[in-house]
């Protein structure tokens, strides 16, 4: 509990603007106080996490406590991003939750094999969505202990 961040930082990796908004609305509707950073594809996600290119400013783009990752994205898809995160010694401790429309068994199994922490199908109705993100918030930021933000492998 002592590790709980004052405001949880969530990195949402989602290429669909409608879904980005929906997610934000769901958090808002659920009255969950979080700092949600949004990137639109896998490449940007990695840039953000590694503070590269447009994301060199660490203050503006802080290290997230949780990553919400869509699977189907242009350029670099969710599985690839997940793989790179888990292969990176500094990033691999960050919990990753797949938030995606795919309920294909193969995608689910692949994601768990790659070390995803949770796999959530995007609900159709907004109220279900709100419930889902509330539970997410509750599990990761209230029940679980997250690794310290300043954790670094070195």
């Amino acid at each position, binding site marked *: 509990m002592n590790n709980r961040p004052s405001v949880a930082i969530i990195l949402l990796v989602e290429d*669909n603007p*409608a879904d980005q908004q*929906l997610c934000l609305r769901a958090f808002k509707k659920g009255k969950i106080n979080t700092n949600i950073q949004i990137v639109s594809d896998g490449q940007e996600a990695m840039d953000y996490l590694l503070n590269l290119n447009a994301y060199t400013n660490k203050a503006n783009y802080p290290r997230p406590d949780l990553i919400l990752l869509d699977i189907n994205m242009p350029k670099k898809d969710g599985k690839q991003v997940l793989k790179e995160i888990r292969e990176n010694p500094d990033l691999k401790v960050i919990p990753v939750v797949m938030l995606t*429309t*795919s309920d294909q068994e193969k995608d689910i199994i692949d994601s768990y094999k790659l070390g995803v922490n949770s796999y959530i199908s*995007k609900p*159709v*109705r*907004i109220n279900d969505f709100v419930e889902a993100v509330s539970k997410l918030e509750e599990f990761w930021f209230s029940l679980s202990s997250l690794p310290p933000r300043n954790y670094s492998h070195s």
Partner: protein
Amino acid sequence: MISNYKSKFKSFIISLSIRTKITFIIIGVSLLAIVVGFFVVTLINISNLKRDLVIQSSLIAKLTGEYSGYGLAFEDTRNAVENLQHLESVGYILSAEIFDQKGEFFASYHNMPTSRKTLIVNNSYHEFHPDELYIFEPIQSTDGERLGSIFLRVSLVTLNKNVDNYIFWMIVIILIVSTITILLANSLQKLISRPILKLAEITTKISSTNDYSIRINKNSNDEIGVLYDGFNNMLEEIVRNQREMLKVQNELKDSEEQFSTFMKMLPAAAFIKDKDSGFRYVNKFLNDNFSAENWIGKIVLNELPSQKRHFTSELDTQALIDIQHQEEFLYDNKNELRYFETWKFPIQRNEKETLIGGISFDTTKRKLIENQVNYYIKELERNNQELEEFNYVASHDLREPLRTITSYCDLLIEDIGESANSMVREDIRFITDATTRMNVLILDLLQLSRAGRIEFEQKIVDLNELIAIVLKDLELKIKETKTTILFENLPSVKGDATQLSRVFQNLITNAIKFKSANEPVIFIRSEEKNNHYEISVEDNGIGIEKQYFQQIFSAFKRLHSRMEYDGTGIGLAICKKIIERHNGNIRIESEIGKGSKFIIRLKKE
């Protein structure tokens, strides 16, 4: 030179007719015997005549000498001459002379002058001269004392005359006998030559007319008779052999004709090769289509490309031992590709030679159809796969915007709040309902697509356990609708438990959904057939008209409005697909108002 004449003589003899030969032999042998016989008899007779003359003359000389003994002893010449003169009466004595003890001439009687002065004869002897016989005899006293010698000259004229006469008659007789002999020979030779000539004549006739029914009449029991019998038997044998041969020949011809007609009409290639793959025989089909006449005596496979050559050569070698099968293709006369199915097999001719027989059926049409079918199958498979991929992708990607629409409809209602009028809310609800339904449709479609695509387990599934689980899942619905479900001893089948569960879940759900006014009752039974089970799910629901029995298994076929019965109409399509993937089939028996019976036919494991 001699041998030359000898052989000429021999060939001359051989060239003579048998008649001449026999005649010559008879005449020759007879004449030889006659001439030699007469000659010997003549010689003996002449010799006898001469001996008689000598004996007679010697006796005369002796007697005359004895009589003259006295005259000699007393040197009485007159006495001696008188004595001698008695001889005059013996006409053939030409002269007689007596010589004394000392050999001095003593006395003579002669018609001719004396021929010698002295003569001493100790032993009697004689000498033949051409026309005369000389007889020399000693003259002895009674006590054996030699007193002198007597010499007679005897004329041979009479003797010679007799001899000549004798010879003359002999020749006459020989001539007569010879003539008779020749005449006899000429007629006697016929005894032997006629039957032989007859045989020769008949043989010539048979050989010129080829009429083997001719027989020779036997008229003697000698060797010729035996020969005739033999000849007739031989003819009989020839006729029988000929008949036999003709029969065999006809049979052979028949069989040959049959075989060649068969080969001519055979709508396939047939050939015979020797052990080195050289062609010995090709049938009409091969010749018509490949000008195979040119192959005879050639090892055609030497002209093939090396890989095919090795293969064919290898196959030919194996075909010398056992039947071989091969598929091949060849370009025909018109340079068109033809496919063949060929069988090659050994033909054991004798211990030394084995040939290769072959027959090839033209499979071009079949091959082309096969190729086409294979092409279609591949195309169909590709299409199917594309369709399923499309189905999956489409249903997956279609849900994405739907979800967004639904979500934003929710947000919209929230955003407009209580301020908006109820019509707007109603409109938005229609949108939400439609998108929700579409989402369900897509989910079902996804399930249908998965039923054909998803990996598939092959395990023994106990249907009793499986149904029990399905009923547990449907427990609530069953209680709500007061449905009674009965199932009896169900078999175990091979398949995918999850998918089979879905089938029964769909069927039971359907049965409950389409219930009649009565409380629903569902029977699940199994019937064992030859090599499969028929598992039926029977209800007492509303039933289906016969005309829809096929339709209901197609996707999105609804027989009822959504108001009456909820659902997408894909459940049975999924069932059908799953059962078909289990190599089974599903059908319905139903009657309006009485209920429906779905029958699943599954193979025994």
